[in-house]
Each structure stands twice: as C-alpha cells, then as structure tokens.
C-alpha cells in the first residue's frame, strides 16, 4: 500500500509518500524524513519524549498515525528556530540547566512551547509543574525545567522586562 499526504513540516509544505498505514508520525520523522531530534521513549504516549506541535498543539508523535495528518502543520525541535539561532525556550533550558542527558529535552521543549502558547500557566510554578507533567525526565531536571518555562514565558510575553533567570520555583 502506498500512501501520500501533504504536510507543512517545519514551515515547508511538502508531499510525503510512505508505504505503510501503520507508520506513526514519530517513525515517519525518525526513520523516513531524517529528523531524529524527536525521541522515542515509550511508543505508548506515556512519557512525552516524542512531543511535537501539530497545528500548534502539543501532540505525542508516537500515538499519531502519519496517514491522519493530511494538510496538517507539524513543528519539530529541528524547526523551532532558524538555523544558528535559539528559541527563547531553548535558551532558557540552557540557562537553567533544565536537562541532563538531553534525551527527553526535545519533547520537554516542544511541550513548554505548547504550554506557553496555551496561556494556562503563566509564570505560576505550580501550574507549570502540572502542565509539564506529561513529560517524564528520568534525570529529574524538573527544578530547572520549571525555572526555564518561567524565564521563557516572561521573555516571550513581556520581552522588555524579562529577567535572565526565572523566579524561585
């Protein structure tokens, strides 16, 4: 069986053909489109490592069949910022040591971008923790992740008054 969809992937609209209806968005990205930045942690939607934005919403790529994405807009970690630059969330993750091994990090960052866009958490650490709890970090860099989301939120929502580091979380 040959399938094809038209997808806007990291800002570029392209026709993508694949051979198998079982292909998930995660395996499409990793194995067929050479975009391995999105990580596989559980393949069950339980860990959040594969989080990408689909039409602006946080989505676990491992639970999304590629064939369902006709016309969708998908953003992965590779497309978050222009080459050579960092998105404010990426910068905040570095500043606050919000990762250790780095494996869950692309998913954490995409989830943080989605959370900030949802506007439900603001800089409230309790709401950030809740909103980021779909993304497991086994190194347990949660303290830094919360600080990073605070910092990025501040710099994106109020870029003029943004402090370099987040509030105590």
């Amino acid at each position, binding site marked *: 069986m040959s399938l094809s969809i038209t997808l806007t992937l990291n800002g570029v609209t392209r026709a993508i053909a694949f051979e*198998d209806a*079982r*292909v998930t968005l995660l*395996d499409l990205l*990793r*194995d067929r489109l*050479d*975009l*391995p*930045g*999105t*990580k*596989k*942690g*559980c*393949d*069950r939607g*339980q*860990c959040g*490592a594969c989080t990408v934005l689909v039409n602006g919403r946080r989505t676990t790529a491992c639970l999304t069949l590629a064939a369902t994405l006709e016309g969708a807009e998908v953003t*992965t*970690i*590779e497309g*978050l*910022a222009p080459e050579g630059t*960092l998105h404010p969330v*990426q*910068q905040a*993750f*570095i*500043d606050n*040591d919000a*990762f*250790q*091994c*780095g*494996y*869950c*990090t*692309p998913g954490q*960052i995409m989830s943080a971008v989605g959370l900030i866009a949802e506007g439900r958490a603001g800089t409230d*650490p309790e709401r*950030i*923790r*809740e909103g*980021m*709890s*779909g*993304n*497991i*970090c*086994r*190194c*347990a*860099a*949660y*303290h*830094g*992740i*919360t600080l990073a989301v605070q910092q990025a939120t501040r710099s994106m929502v109020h870029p003029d008054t943004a402090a370099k580091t987040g509030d105590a979380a």
Partner: protein
Amino acid sequence: MPEIAQPFRFGSNAGQPVTRRDGIAKVTGAAAFAADTAPAGLLHALCAPAAIARGRVTHLDIARAESHPGVVRVLTPANRPFLEGDPAEKPTMFSFRIEVLQDDSVRYAGQPIAMVLAETPEAAAEGVRLLNPQYAAETPRVTLDEEAAYPVEPGGFGRPAATLHGDIEAAHGAATRALDVTYTTAPQYHNAMETHAVVAEWTGDRLHLALPSQALAMSCAAYAWFFGIPVENVTLSSPYLGGGFGSKAIPTGPQVLAILAARVLGRPVKLMLPRAQMFGPTGHRGATRQRLRLGIDDDFALTALDHDSLSETSSFDDFHEPAANASQGLYAAQALRSTHRGVRLDVGTPGPMRAPGEASGSAALECAMDEMAEQAGLDPLAFRLLNYAETEPGTGRPYSSKALRDCYRLGAERFGWAHRPLTPRQMRDAEGMLVGWGMGTALFPAPMFQAQARATLNPDGTALVETAAADMGQGAWTALAQIAADALGLPLEKVTFHSGHSSLPDGGVAGGSGHTATAGGALHAAGTDVIRQLAEIATADPASPLHGAGNARVAARDGQLFLVDDETRAEAFEAILARHGGQSLTGGGSAARPPEDAQRHAMSSHGAVFAEVKVDPELCQVRVTRLVGAFAAGRIINPRLADSQLYGGMIWGIGMALHEEAHHDPRTGRVLNADLAGYHVPVNADVTGLEVLTVHEEDPHVNILGIKGVGEIGVTGTVGAIGNAIWHATGKRIRRFPIRIEDLLAE
C-alpha cells in the same frame, strides 16, 4: 627540571558554574544518540519477549512471521548463528551471563526468545506478533518467600562480603534499649529515557557500534570477546547516553544478538528496546528485606548495629543488592555486623542501579535510627550527633575528610528543624493536612576506577584534550573540559574536548560516582605533562624570560607560563612553541587510586536530607512539600551541574520512597506494570520545594583533584527522611518502600 606547581585548586575554570558545552546540541535536537544514526541498508531488529518466567518455548510460528512483507529473517535457538563467546561466561569484571538464544529455556519474563529482522520497524513489530509463541510453563518464583535463603558467597561485584567488627552478641546484651525491625524495598527498574539501543555495522571482521555505554573500553573488550575478534577491530561511538543509572555499563543479550544478526545478514542492524523490554534483560534493583537490630546504652550510644539483607537474584547469576553495606561507615557503633543472604528467583539478573546498596540500605537504616531515637525520646538529629563517627566505625581509619557535622547544621538551619515537635501528629497546615518532618543521613563512597587521557597543545595556543569518557547527563562534556583547561592553564574556550569514542584513550567507567575524579584525574595528569614539557623547553631556551629558572616553580595560567615567585617572568605558550619549531606538544596521563591511599583513609561523600510531607488525614495521599539536602562531596568542579545531579538523586529518593515498584504476576511471573504508566516515576508535579546546599570541603587525600562525586549520594538519606516524615505526620511506621496510600489506610 623545573618543578611544576599544581594548578590553583579554584582556578579560572574549575569551580565555575558554566553552562553545558553540549547544551546547544541537546536543545536543538542535533545531539545524535545511538538510535538516531541510520546507515544505508539498515535493518530493524526486534526481540520477541518471553511471556512466561520459567519453562520452555515449545513452538514459534517462524514461517508465518517470515512470510510477512518486509520481514527478512527470524533468529531462534534452532537457527541462531555461531557466537564465539560463551554467554554463560563473564569476559570482564562487570559482566553478566546473558540470553542470546542459546537454548529454548525461559529463565525470566521478557527474556528474548527470538529476534525478528525486518526492513521497517512496523514489519519487525508485526513479525514478532505473528510468532505466536507456545510454552511449557512451570510455576515461577517471583517473591522473596518462595525459596530458602542462602548466605551470599563473597566474590566482588554483586557478591558483598559479610563484615563483623566487635562482639555483636555481647554488644546486644549490653544494650539498655533495643530495636529489632524489618524493612522491605521493592524491585525497581532503571528506565533511562533512552532505552538500550545499538546500531551495528560490520566491514569484514571490523565491527562499528553506535551504542550508549557507561564503559566504552570495557564494552569493546566484551564485544570483541563475544565475536572472536581483536579488540582493536571494535569501534564504539557513544557521545551521548540518554541516561544510564548503572544499566548501560554492561552488554545485554538483545544488543549482542543485534550485532550477531548484522554479521550474518551482512547489513547494518538497528535495535532499540521497546519500553516493556526494559523490565527484564537490562538489570534492575533487586527487592530486599532488611532486618536491623540496634542497641543503645544509658548514654544513648549505639552498642550494636546489626544489618542483615535478604535480596533476590536470578536463577543463573549473582547480583545481590549490597544493602547492609550502608551500615558499615556511618555511625559509631561499638559492634557492627553486616550480612547478606540471597534468594534465587525467576527474574532477570539484578544489577547496579543508582546508589546500589546504599539506596536500599540507607532507606532501612535511617528509618531504624529514627525508631531508635523515638524509643530513646531523643530528637533524631541529636541522636545521630551522639553517635557521630569521628573515624570509620570498625576499622578506626580516619576519614579523608568528613564535613557531615556542617551538613547537619546547615541543612537543619535552612529547613527550620529546631522547631520540630518531638512527638508525631502535632502539625497541620491551613487546609487540615497532617504535616511531618523527617531527616536522614546521606552517604556514598568515593571510589576511583582507571583512566587514561591525552592532551595536545597547539602552536596557536589552543589545546585538544582526549579521553573516552561517558556523558549520561552528569556533565562530563563540561566538567572534564574544565579540569583539563585548568591543568593546561588555558581558558575553557581554548580547549577542545574529544570524548565518547573508543578510538580515544580509555576514559574508564562512568559509575560509582567516580568518573569525574578518574577521567578528570587522567586529563589533569595529561595537561600537567604538557606543561612540564613546555616548561623544560622554556627554561632551556635563552630567548625566554623563563630561561635558567632552574628549580624555581613554574606554573601555567591564562595561556602563559610564569614563575610563581616572580610573575613578571612570564611568556605566552604560543611564543615558546614558535621558537621551538612551531610544533605541537602532546602529553599523556592516567589516574587510579594507589592501593595504599585506599588503605590509609576511609573516603566517602556525606550529606543530610530534611523532608517535609503533607498527608491527607482521610485519603492518606502523601505529598513531599519540602526537601532540603546539604552535601559535602569534596571539591565541586561545576556547581550548576553538581546541583542538578544532587537534585536528580533526591528526586530518585522521592521515587523510591513513594512511587517505584514493579509488580510481578504470581501466575506468569510477568511484570504487570512494565511501562511508564504503571511503573510510576516522579513527574514535575511531584517535585516542589527542593533545595540543595553544598558544603565546602578540601580533601587532600581522596585524589589529586579533591573530588568525591555527587551522582548517587542524593538518593541516600532522602528515602529514609521521607519515611520518617510520614511517621512524624501520621504516627504510623510503614516498614516498606514505596509507602502507598493503602499502607497508611491499613495501619
């Protein structure tokens, strides 16, 4: 020859909280983990896991699986190609017996019973499903009560020796108060976010591996042995590990099978274990049942501390969680005994998991100490201070350094411990939640392994430093570069660091919290060797301001050599090298702890953890609301990264205290919750009010860099502190971990 002054201990690089050098690669998705590599012609491998824990595989529908489009080959015990290494043997110090389809027996659930190779991951998954295995099952043994316990035969790794200091029975007899309690800890699984993976490619008899490894050189030796090739024919790339926690130092059966498949099929093979297969062939922290007998005299001094640990291992190999070791180095008991007993179960072989032994042992010991303090009517911290060990209990060896008193004091002050009521169930918050405060002492040994390194100073004043270190998140890419830069007297940005590849000098093992000390020690030695050569050139060169310095002390800083006693006599590295033919200079170094150093001093990191919990009085839901840890771990190379390690360890303590437990189905022996929905690990919402304090500690004995290590100690102390806080909130002693709602409701 000029004497080379040691680099300044808190120089321009080490001691600074620089951000991770691999940070940009990790936040942009550019960091290539093993399974992110995809050579042309790749095949995807997937193991079929045993659905029973004991018995035999009687049938596999190989024809059906192989007829599925895209399936290339099914490997089973019936057709498994020849493997030179015997999987029942152990080629290296840290080896386990593995399962590589050597026969049709099943020794634990999740054991590989076949491997499917396919053109796509989807076809491999369908191929595994179509195998539809049939079994002759026997009743599995999965709990500590199902077999008679035996004394563990000492034998190094995973087989701890019993220890006895003093007359334990006399000491028990002399006690005026005694405690005899039993604590249990649950089976836990590492569950690094990156599951075990390999991309294997053969060219002739040369093997190329992308494989996350905590021990690159040792892994190469093991794979060379399995495949009957010289070790120099194996190259292993492991620039980043997506977590390890002890589970990625040792070759596993599925990885060896994937490499074998690549050789037989003549194509590169990728294997990435599904999450469920991380509950079997990749090691775990075995369950323990620990009995602690404590006695104190009229002055509240410990007369006896007797710690016996019963732990599980597999039916075919030995790794016993060395839990009772946790009681050997901590409190000044007049008599000390630690013993280990084992039970053979139908489970995968346990292995080292972050703070092996100390995590489980400290959990039980710190709760027992709390119970003893309660019985004596003492504050738990005061009781510990009364039994503070000034020298190592039993041996009398001095500590290389021990700032534990400072940890107790600073942690207690920060936490507000002085305001703690002595009796439980005294505090409530505004919402009516029961509030409790508990504490525990943290301890982890400071071992070293062996490592080599190379440093090259370039004519332009930059340097390349090299060692095959492993970065599983602890920050080796950054901290080791900082150490090397200081040894070379260079700013960090002038130092390029090559690591994570087996072609480099052996960086040793990233384990035991000893990697920074060991690989860092080797880099320090290599850098110092380069500076020694450079000083010889400069002091012999009439054109150098350092000429004729003779025995004066030369030091390197900011890219210059200078005389320590007369800093006006200085010259830039580039200038010295330019007059010396413009050649680069290369130096080598190694690090290991001399045995006499290990004899002379007891060496450990120490700490104190204070916990606040809130417990719903009706629902018994427990939340850890504050956790303050104060740690003394020698010299801290990078406070930013060290804090992250300590936070991470303490959060592992939360997981062990409240969340993590693998449940076995007694009928099949399978782990019922072999996924991240059922096997709970802490998430962001579980972590509030965490604070880490580090206590400055100068240790002149532990190693030349004064480093003790921070990777594991955070788990210790924390588990007991939380258990004790739950008692303080509720008045209920739960003597099992994790502590669950039903335990609190049942009491």
